[in-house]
């Protein structure tokens, strides 16, 4: 297939083996089996490798929360690894889709320090002025004059980060917590059938998540 690293990724709408699906009908239909064998032949003939995943076993979940499968994947030619070195394929929690996003990460984990961002919407908040003034005045100035400005800015940066968390954090925390709860149910559903009650809870959490995401936009 020519030189260079090849990577084929997406929604193949087929599983590689029966263990990659779970559902109400445990037995695969003859059509599914045929699709599967076509897929397996393709992978074998082109000498592709199925990139193993971490994070979750399945990538797609039926709204009934009982059927799930690993139909989204990344196939690579062996050269790919030589090309890019070690890589990890993460299956991330899903929220607005019935599919989980897949993220391929290559190389180190060090993402460096978090940059400071000034949010323009702070300017519309009446409390901002007080926070800045307070932070600016409260600091003791007994250093070299040349360092005072630098230190004051540095401290202000920290104070604004804290303030942002206090003032706007609760919404984000709530969204994050609901996503975690959905994730927990998804993962539990992977291990065993969810009860009717749990399926309902799951649905409720989704509608709550959507309603929380909406006003943010």
């Amino acid at each position, binding site marked *: *297939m*020519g*030189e*260079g*690293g*090849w*990577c*084929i*990724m*997406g*929604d*193949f*709408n*087929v599983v590689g083996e029966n263990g990659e699906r779970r559902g109400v009908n445990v037995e695969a239909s003859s*059509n599914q089996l*045929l*699709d599967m064998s*076509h897929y397996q032949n393709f992978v074998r003939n082109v000498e592709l490798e199925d990139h193993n995943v971490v994070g979750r076993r399945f990538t797609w979940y039926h709204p009934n929360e009982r059927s799930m499968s690993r139909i*989204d994947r990344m196939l690579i030619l062996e050269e*790919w690894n030589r*090309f*890019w070195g070690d890589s990890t394929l993460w299956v*991330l929690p899903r*929220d*607005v*889709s019935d*599919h989980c*996003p897949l*993220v391929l*990460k290559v190389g180190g984990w060090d*993402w460096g320090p978090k940059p400071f961002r000034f949010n323009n919407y702070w300017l519309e908040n009446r409390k901002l002025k007080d926070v800045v003034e307070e932070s600016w005045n409260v600091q003791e100035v007994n250093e070299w004059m040349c360092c005072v400005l630098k230190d004051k800015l540095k401290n202000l940066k920290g104070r604004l980060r804290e303030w942002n968390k206090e003032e706007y954090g609760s919404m984000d925390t709530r969204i994050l917590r609901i996503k975690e709860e959905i994730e927990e149910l998804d993962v539990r559903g992977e291990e065993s059938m969810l009860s009717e009650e749990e399926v309902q809870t799951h649905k409720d959490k989704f509608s709550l998540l*959507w309603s929380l*995401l*909406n006003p943010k*936009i």
Partner: protein
Amino acid sequence: MGGRQKKNKIRELVRDHKVDFIALQETKMEEITARLCFNLWRSEDCCWEFLPSEGNSGGLLSIWRKSSSTVNYTFSREGFVGVSLEWGALKRRCVLINVYAKCDSEAKRRL
């Protein structure tokens, strides 16, 4: 991808994971505009290639960082969009294919 939540989710992914290349399936969009790509990518530093959806079904979109890459060629047919790129300062060649297989078995086998 019609809804704002889904677009926002993609924007979040691009930001949080410092994405170099993204492959989207089931865009359900017949036309992809520069404005949409710039919006998803959060900057104009991107190139893209797409396969239109058939009405409300399918549709593929690949977006990648323009300043890190040179495009050798692109190719697409029913069910996939491929790009051959030279990536980074080392000009490493790679081919990235974005796939969406329809549920329909006939179409799947053709692919």
